[in-house]
């Protein structure tokens, strides 16, 4: 088991290194910083609650750019390795397919963690420098955002084992969009009373409810998310992510690399 863990970590570390060396990542960070700075300007325009605007923009940027990274780099993690065949020498080593797959996931998770932390630091810095309180409650919004991103990465990896990286990206974006409207699906019967309950339940269960990870507005109003909610959100994220990664792993394991 120790060997397996250290191999998985080796893959994770290499994946992290790969994403850091991809220039795309630097651009996203740059844009995110720019957005946060832009919030400063907006702050002067709006009469009230400029602090809320800053927080909203910062949190939204984390969510948006995090999602872009999760989708576009997530789908490339496995499919690029397959398409370029850089996978081949590695799989002949004592490395199992499972260790490779999970190592890739862990590597991108680390990248996202670093990315979000940098953006959060930037936001806190901006808030501090402009004379507003450094609000630790922001962490209670960033943490669920991070969990949601991990789930998106899992979907990206699942799809990339099934199809090309381009199509996988499209499908993952689809899941993200539908997932954000999952609670609308749940409430569908309020507006369309004719829809059978089972259909609504069925639709709701196959789609991750990404609204569960969205506490941005609440936190921006100054209301921290309570510990028990965060705990259950973590359980939800862990369960869904495990399911999706499990399916992706099964798919990856059964692949023939012609």
């Amino acid at each position, binding site marked *: 088991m120790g060997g397996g863990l250290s191999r998985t970590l080796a893959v994770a570390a290499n994946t992290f290194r790969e994403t850091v060396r991809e220039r795309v990542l630097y651009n996203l960070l740059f844009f995110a910083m720019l957005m946060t700075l832009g919030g400063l300007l907006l702050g002067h325009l709006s009469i009230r609650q400029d602090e809320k605007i800053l927080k909203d923009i910062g949190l939204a940027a984390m969510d948006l750019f995090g999602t872009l990274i999760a989708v576009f780099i997530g789908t490339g993690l496995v499919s690029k390795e397959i398409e370029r065949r850089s996978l081949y020498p590695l799989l002949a080593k004592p490395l199992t397919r499972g260790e490779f797959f999970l190592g890739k996931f862990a590597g991108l998770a680390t990248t996202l963690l670093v990315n979000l932390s940098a953006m959060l630091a930037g936001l806190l810095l901006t808030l501090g420098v402009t004379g507003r309180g450094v609000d630790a409650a922001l962490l209670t919004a960033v943490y669920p955002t991070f969990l949601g991103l991990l789930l998106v990465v899992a979907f990206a990896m699942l799809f990339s084992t099934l199809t090309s990286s381009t199509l996988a990206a499209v499908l993952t974006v689809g899941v993200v969009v539908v997932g954000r409207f999952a609670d609308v699906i749940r409430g*569908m019967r309020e507006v369309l009373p004719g829809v059978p309950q089972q259909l609504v339940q069925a639709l709701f269960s196959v789609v991750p409810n990404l609204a569960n990870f969205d*506490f941005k507005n609440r936190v921006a109003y100054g209301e921290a998310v309570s510990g028990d909610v965060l705990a259950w959100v973590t359980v939800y994220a862990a369960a869904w992510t495990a399911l999706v990664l499990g399916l992706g792993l099964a798919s990856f394991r059964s692949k023939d690399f012609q």
Partner: protein
Amino acid sequence: MTRALALALLLVAPLVPLSQQRIDRLAGAFRAQEEVLYLWSGEHVKRLVPGFEGLAADIYWLRTVQYFGGQRRYESGKSFELLRPLIDITTTLDPRLEIAYRYGAIFLSEPPPFGAGRPKEGVAVMEKGVEALPDAWRLRQELGFFHFLFLDDAATASRILLEAAEIPGAAFWLRTLAADLLAKDGDRAASRRMWTQMFEQAEEGIIRDNARVRLEILDSLDLADAVARAVSDFHARHARRPARLEELARAGLWRGPLVDAAGVPLGYDVETGRVSIAQSSPLWRPQ
């Protein structure tokens, strides 16, 4: 898939609905994204979704309905801060969504806890609707109704009803009703007319329920008036007011139930002889 993996996934799967339930209980079921509404006016949103305005309107309308707790259950105790902005965004995105104006107007105007208690805003929403849909005689008719029912402005109501009467397809008696409004008494009859109209025109759901309740209130007020007259009679005969309304029955002055349409006993003030809907009744409304 290896058996171990499949088993692991099966064990993990039930955690999903379980944790969702807990999250709903702790954090509220419809945490539909409460948009940065002071920043995103209807116009802002419209500019963000070129080509998808209709869809966006549908989504906002869905959110409004969910936020407000659904169209099917008529209940009290909702929160209304976001109702106006949500209706505003929805109707800016799709000015032809007639039901949004109606919904917004009713529940902005109704007093708490059933509505926001801001009839001026409700009327404003209705006015936006009338401007966007000049041929929708029903909207204009309701605008007139609202001026009368919630703003106590019979003159304006009358004028608007006459305008509505001009629109092809409008109900034939709008003109008569407009005239009736200008006569000082007959408030309740006019109100009954209006709520009946709205009741019949509405589909099953919260708007119809609201109209039905309003009619029940009117019935109950009629009943209260009748009981009050009986109390007067009693007073005239016995030189005192009845201590309780049941005495009227014993005195042969009243036959039938002494409860309002919700089954709650009528309120009675022995000092003044006033009979009214009890404050504890769900039909009670502030004056």
